[in-house]
């Protein structure tokens, strides 16, 4: 590949040496910016940094090949105001009310202003956005949005977005990829982050990657639950990495259930289905959403924004739960309780044009062709609304450390994320993080600190100590028990008692984890060890979630309680939850104020009560 830019983004293979039989060796690399996670957010940050300062060294560290990152599975689209009749303040209001007023309103304002520009940038980089007949970008309706403003690439928006970012990143020689490198820990010294320590999964080598700034972009933690739409890699790594260094996690109690996952597998069926006019039916063929404040019923094939099937995800998932309680869901022998997502009235041509992937998935994983039959669906854990607390510039409280994407809590989503805001989020804040990190890299110098080297050795040894063939506890069993505990106590509806039980179970699982059995001592792709490391991260994140939830004695957005705290309590809880890690015992829970600029808390209303936010 002589003379081609393509060769620049090579994976780190040049340092391979003959086997030494020991993992404690630490290989050291110096760079300007280290980015952990190479999904949409990490890649966007890398691109922004490389464009701002082409001379910078950027280490792009991912535990998988970037194209495997879970951004790839996003289907529906990315929100950004582009239609002439749409307004930024409508997008703002939809987002803030969708988040049940727990959003940082200055952040939302910043976000809606930059959204369309970022999506346009993607267009200029080659993203195959779906188009209108005249060649302009098409937009579709999405839940909780008052107007059609969701840009989409059929129903593979995340895939195309990730592909475009990845391939564009190949142009930049400054971006050096560390594929299949698992980040074990952050290096923190002198009150600031100094780099990361990563395990090269293929070579079995541990590398110290010293950097002036570190950006965490590792995605969410959906895998703390058993039934979820997330890939196996979504294990909350970045959340735990920051958390263990006492960086607070914010609003972790808010976990989004997507109302339409395929039963059995949890495979995602996009909200775009409902945006295109799909309807939800209970066992009687009745559109039950009208019973839950989302009506009046709209005519089939004429979806109305913020009404019925286009309500927000928290409301739709809650409605499913009530239907289930009333015995009005369908009971499937293998899958359990389901409702039906009916697309048949859209017709084959439209389904094939707008929702081809959904058709493929429904056929493969539910044995149903949506052209001829309704798709069985049920809510599945989908998105971690909370995350590493950052400001509007993606910076965390730890100097030099940034967080972006699903692992971050910029404050954009509040208590409930609107579908199609998160793909845009990772572009808007990925860029900000990259630019900010580039700034820092310009004004900071790396010192050769032997202390860092010693710290890296200690990290390697700690990780290595997990390998314990004599352990009594099975890692898969602990993982499954965690998933079940989270579903039991921290599902769509919660009670004090249930949450406390889950908290106790997690504490017990954390104790048992210390005796986890890892028998494989080998170095090359030791996936047994990797799973155990990931489980450690999952347990810490789950603990933050349940204790944050216990502390929120109200119901808001995705956090709904069935005990004495069934309604929103702005007086006591119009504030963020901050969860701080403690070595010995549950996290310390604190609170932080919510930034309100122009939209004071109000009644959240959809359907006939809400109309479109633009009509208010």
């Amino acid at each position, binding site marked *: 590949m002589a003379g081609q830019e*393509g060769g620049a983004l090579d994976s780190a293979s040049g340092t391979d040496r003959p086997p030494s039989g020991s993992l404690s060796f630490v290989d050291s690399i110096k760079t300007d910016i280290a980015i952990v996670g190479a999904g949409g957010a990490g890649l966007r940050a890398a691109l922004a940094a490389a464009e701002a300062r082409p001379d910078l060294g950027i280490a792009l560290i991912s535990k998988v090949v970037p194209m495997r990152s*879970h951004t790839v599975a996003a289907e529906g689209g990315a929100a950004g105001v582009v239609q002439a009749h749409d307004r930024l303040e409508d997008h703002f209001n939809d987002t803030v009310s969708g988040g049940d007023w727990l959003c940082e309103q200055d952040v939302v304002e910043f976000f809606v202003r930059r959204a369309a520009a970022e999506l*346009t940038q993607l267009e200029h980089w080659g993203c195959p956005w779906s188009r209108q007949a005249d060649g302009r970008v098409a937009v579709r309706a999405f839940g909780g949005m008052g107007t059609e403003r969701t840009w989409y690439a059929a129903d593979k928006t995340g895939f195309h977005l990730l592909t475009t970012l990845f391939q564009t990143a190949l*142009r930049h020689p400054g971006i050096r990829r560390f594929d299949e490198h698992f980040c074990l820990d952050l290096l923190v010294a002198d009150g600031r982050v100094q780099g990361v320590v990563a395990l090269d999964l293929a070579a079995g080598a541990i590398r110290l990657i010293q950097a002036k700034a570190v950006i965490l972009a590792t995605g969410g933690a959906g895998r703390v639950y058993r039934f979820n739409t997330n890939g196996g*890699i979504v294990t909350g790594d970045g959340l735990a990495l920051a958390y263990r260094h006492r960086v607070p996690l914010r609003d972790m109690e808010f976990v989004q259930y997507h109302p339409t996952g395929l039963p059995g597998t949890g495979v995602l069926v996009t909200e775009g289905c409902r945006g295109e006019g799909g309807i939800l039916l209970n066992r009687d063929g009745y559109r039950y959403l009208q019973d839950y404040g989302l009506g009046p019923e709209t005519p089939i094939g004429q979806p109305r924004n913020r009404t019925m099937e286009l309500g927000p995800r928290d409301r739709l998932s809650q409605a499913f739960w009530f239907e289930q309680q009333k015995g009005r869901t369908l009971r499937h022998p293998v899958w359990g309780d389901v409702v039906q997502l009916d697309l048949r009235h859209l017709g084959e041509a439209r389904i094939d044009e707008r929702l081809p992937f959904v058709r493929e998935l429904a056929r493969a994983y539910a044995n149903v062709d949506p052209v001829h039959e309704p798709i069985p669906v049920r809510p599945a854990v989908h998105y971690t609304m909370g995350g590493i607390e950052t400001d509007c510039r993606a910076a965390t409280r730890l100097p030099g450390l940034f967080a972006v994407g699903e692992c971050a809590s910029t404050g954009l989503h509040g208590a409930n994320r609107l579908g199609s805001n998160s793909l845009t989020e990772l572009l808007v804040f990925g860029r900000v993080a990259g630019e900010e990190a580039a700034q820092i890299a310009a004004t900071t110098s790396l010192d050769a600190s032997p202390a860092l080297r010693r710290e890296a050795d200690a990290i390697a040894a700690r990780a290595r100590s997990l390998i314990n063939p004599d352990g009594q506890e099975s890692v898969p069993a602990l993982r499954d028990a965690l998933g079940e505990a989270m579903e039991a106590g921290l599902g769509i509806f919660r009670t004090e008692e249930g949450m406390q039980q889950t908290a106790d179970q997690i504490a017990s699982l954390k104790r048992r984890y210390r005796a986890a059995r890892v028998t494989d001592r*080998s170095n090359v792709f030791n*996936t047994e060890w990797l799973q155990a490391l990931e489980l450690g991260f999952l347990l810490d994140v789950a603990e933050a979630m349940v204790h944050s939830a216990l502390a929120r004695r109200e119901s808001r957005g995705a956090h709904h309680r069935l005990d004495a705290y069934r309604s929103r309590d702005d007086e006591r809880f119009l504030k963020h939850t901050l969860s701080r890690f403690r070595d010995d015992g549950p996290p310390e829970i604190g609170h932080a104020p919510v930034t309100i600029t122009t939209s004071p808390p109000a009644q959240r209303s959809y359907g006939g009560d809400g109309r479109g936010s633009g009509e208010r």
Partner: protein
Amino acid sequence: MNGTIVIEVQRYRPEQDPHPWWQAFELDYRPEMSVLDALHQIRDRHDSGLAYRWSCRMAICGSCGLMVDGVPRLGCKTFLRDYYPDRIRLGPLAHFPIERDLIVDLRDFLDKLAAVKPYLIRAAQDERPSEPRRQTPAQLARFLPFAQCISCGLCYAACPEYGLNNRFFGPAALALLHRYNRDSRDQGRAERLPTMNAEDGVWGCTFVGYCSQVCPKGVDPAAAINQGKIVSVIDYVRHLVGLSPATLGQDATQEGER
């Protein structure tokens, strides 16, 4: 209906085994189980050391490619019911070096994807960078099928020409090249021509066509490559008569905007 099924898995542990070998596992069978589910069951209940890649389990991340009875397939989209009650043999993707068990070294493949300049190349700065460019649905349709590649590597495992000569750029990389050449927004065809024209570019292909059969996303790399041969022939003739290839970039644009 729910019995057991025997799955044979090819194992190779580089620190222990001189060669790959086969190991059989008897698993609980359920008709909805995928090959990936079977691998999970083996790892969780029988042998925690079994190594394989996976993530999305919905046929979009491209991690879990492997050989199922000698055929390249995605583990998450292959179902045991299509084989039951026969035993199934699972091996690592053909033609790639085996790292361990079902994990292969894909670096050569990934390097090739990067080498075809898979990004929009423009002759000049865009006049209106703050506005999306127009592209009609027809223009979109010209390249969209070739933009569906999930880089799973199945087509390389299906391609004997790559197996015989790994300098050949191979199906996915050349399909990706074709995808950008056919994009109405791209003007970089001339820059990609040397890759196509090379001995190991489109001319490394003998149109076996198996790549297109195994592609889980319907990309049809064989069509892409063989359409590329025609482009390369035209460029060859132009080269012989002394025409500059630089003008081809514009041709591509005009063609796209017809």
